[in-house]
């Protein structure tokens, strides 16, 4: 598959995943959030296990610990997003979550990983912070 097609697929699938989060509440399935997430993650585990086993690389402790931290944060993030998407309009929830996450990751990159930031990055941080204030006000 070409780069553009992969990007388009990535765009659509990521967008659909967020639509799915909103759909949980709209389909009146809020009482079933753990079951929705359990089946989502179990299927994803099964599907990714094939690729991992096929690569036949030795499993490292770093991959286990980083994966575990990512898994716990993903589960908490998904559960909280589904819950909030049921309480507030989607045009507030998704920009604030996506924009807020981006800002924190960039700021952590600056503070912890000593990454550099240019004029566009500073403008992006200001625009993102202003967006969050406007959307959540």
């Amino acid at each position, binding site marked *: 598959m070409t780069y553009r097609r992969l990007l388009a697929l990535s765009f659509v699938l990521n967008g659909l995943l967020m639509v799915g989060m909103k759909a949980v509440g709209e389909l009146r399935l809020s009482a079933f959030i753990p079951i929705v997430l359990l*089946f*989502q993650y179990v299927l994803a585990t099964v599907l990714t296990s094939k690729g991992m086993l096929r*690569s036949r690389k030795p499993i490292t402790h770093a991959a*286990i610990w980083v*994966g575990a*931290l990512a*898994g716990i944060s993903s589960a908490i993030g998904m559960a909280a997003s589904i819950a909030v998407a049921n309480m507030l309009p989607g045009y507030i929830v998704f920009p604030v979550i996506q924009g807020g996450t981006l800002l924190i990751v960039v700021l952590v990159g600056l503070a912890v990983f000593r990454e550099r930031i240019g004029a*566009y990055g500073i403008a992006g*941080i200001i625009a993102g912070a202003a967006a969050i204030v406007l959307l959540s*006000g």
Partner: protein
Amino acid sequence: MSYLCMILAVIAFAVLGVTYKLSDRLACHKQQVNFFMFLTASVAVLAWGVLTRQLLLSERAVILGLVMGLICCGSVVAFRHAAALGRISTSWTVINLALVLPVLASILVWGEMPSPKHCVGLALTLAAIVLLGIDIGRAQE
């Protein structure tokens, strides 16, 4: 309560974003990280469901969960391949801009109408994503 949930979601997803940076720094095998991420998330959600006695079965919930699992896995794999073929900054920007789809769905499908203030906020979010994407691209050069 809603804003507490939103803050929790932002912090949790930010930690998830930092783990992607960590896995790069530690040169972890991406497929292994993805596998252990989904495995740990499955165990965490199972524990949450059992402890709160919320593991209620529903046919529609199971179907939606399986569809979301397929989408989630496909999204991760497509992003990984796209990032390997092209610039990570472009891939990263495009995947973040996907928030347009749920926003459109909320307006067109579920009839949630944003105010002018919210429209400006939404436009600023998209601008922030593009600007940060350009900055990452420049840093890579």
